[in-house]
């Protein structure tokens, strides 16, 4: 089967339509993950022991099971208990929950990487707990987190094709549906790959920039 440029131009608008959904899902998924991650991290680090433990287990469970199956679960099983989410929303929740567990780890590591001496210096200068967090710990913990979070953002972007399994018409699903009606897989699939590669290469450059910009603040 030969590569057909005319066909490429013909399907381009459809694919771009899908790309739009992909990007939307990524953006909302990421925002949700950032928030859910914060909740997980706070529960794990500061809640009473039993709650922290249960949270820890939930986080481990979500991290240890495939997003695809989680999506099926949210989309097909939750309606049995009366929670019927539109496909796109179900997808965003799946992404947010799954990547929230990763974000939680980033938050935790970022905070734990602030040297103990900083906590002690804050205490020795008699700052309160809240003041220590706001003025000493978070300003140091957040910048190094940014590249790691961005990394997961990109990873999430690359996992959005899974949403096609729960009928979201994102890039991959559009490509499949084009393939279904034309019986040609080469062009749509390759184009999807190229789209992802382009987006990723751009984000790699962006990531390098972030890493440089927020490279560890030095002291010691």
């Amino acid at each position, binding site marked *: 089967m030969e590569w057909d440029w005319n066909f490429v131009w013909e399907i381009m608008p459809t694919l771009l339509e899908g790309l739009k959904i992909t990007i939307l899902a990524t953006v909302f998924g990421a925002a949700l993950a950032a928030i859910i991650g914060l909740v997980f991290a706070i529960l794990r680090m500061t809640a009473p022991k039993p709650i922290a433990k249960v949270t820890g287990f939930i986080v481990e469970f979500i991290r240890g099971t495939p997003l695809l199956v989680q999506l099926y679960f949210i989309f097909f099983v939750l309606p049995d208990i009366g929670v019927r989410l539109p496909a796109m929303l179900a997808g965003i929740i799946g992404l947010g929950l799954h990547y929230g567990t990763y974000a939680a780890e980033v938050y935790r590591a970022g905070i734990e990487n602030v040297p103990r001496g900083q906590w002690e210096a804050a205490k020795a200068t008699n700052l309160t707990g809240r003041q220590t967090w706001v003025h000493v710990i978070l300003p140091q913990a957040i910048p190094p987190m940014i590249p790691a979070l961005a990394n997961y953002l990109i990873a999430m972007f690359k996992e959005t094709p899974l949403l096609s399994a729960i009928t979201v018409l994102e890039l991959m699903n559009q490509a499949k549906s084009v*393939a*279904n009606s034309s*019986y040609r897989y080469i062009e749509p699939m390759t184009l999807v790959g190229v789209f992802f590669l382009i987006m990723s290469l751009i984000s790699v450059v962006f990531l390098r920039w972030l890493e440089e910009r927020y490279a560890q603040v030095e002291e010691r």
Partner: protein
Amino acid sequence: DGKLEELKEQGFARVAIANEPPFTAVAADGKVSGAAPDVAREVFKRLGVEDIVASISEYGAMIPGLQAGRHDVITAGLFMKPERCNAVAYSEPILCDAEAFALKKGNPLKLKSYKDIADNPDAKIGAPGGGTEEKLALEAGVPRDRVIVVPDGQSGLKMLQDGRIDVYSLPVLSINALVAKANDPSVEVVAPVEGAPVYCDGAAFKKGEEALRDAFDVELAKLKQSGEFAKIIEPYGFSAAAAMSTTREKLCAAK
């Protein structure tokens, strides 16, 4: 004939199926059954190919998979339509069926044809991706965003029960099998869909392997003559007479 010798050599033919009873099914023990694979198994046996090995696939992925050499033949209830006839080499007709809708009890949106769905801006139809029903809906003018591509029959039924779609469309026998198994009084069947033609499937071979197809046709014809064909498909609810009353030529020419 190279391809047939190859299959004999390897002892089995790789077939694509969809796991959509009664056309194709996988039993609890993993055994492949359903009318289409059963016929194919018998014909291949007569051609000297011992067995068939099935892999489940989406409808949309079947023809690309055939072209990519992933399987040797499609036996999945993939109905003959002119553009498909251009893409693959069909055998003579095997299983015929009309289209049907599964919808909520009492048919609240009064949907009887694909046109009705197109005309009702609230109606959403679910159909297998790359299947005949998806195409019929689109051709009838249902906009893309109201044709939900559903991965498999069970998902379709579930989405109908959950109210995510208003109609789920499959061939009559498939819908009946699905609804019977679900045993859900809130779901009813409209069959056949008004204005939708009766379709027949055939075993689909890769273009360029017409020799194998022709050999298949010869044995298929014998099977039909001997009455064994009817014995295989009628328990599944299909009509042997329907398949024998039409030809590939007619079906591929139909518009």
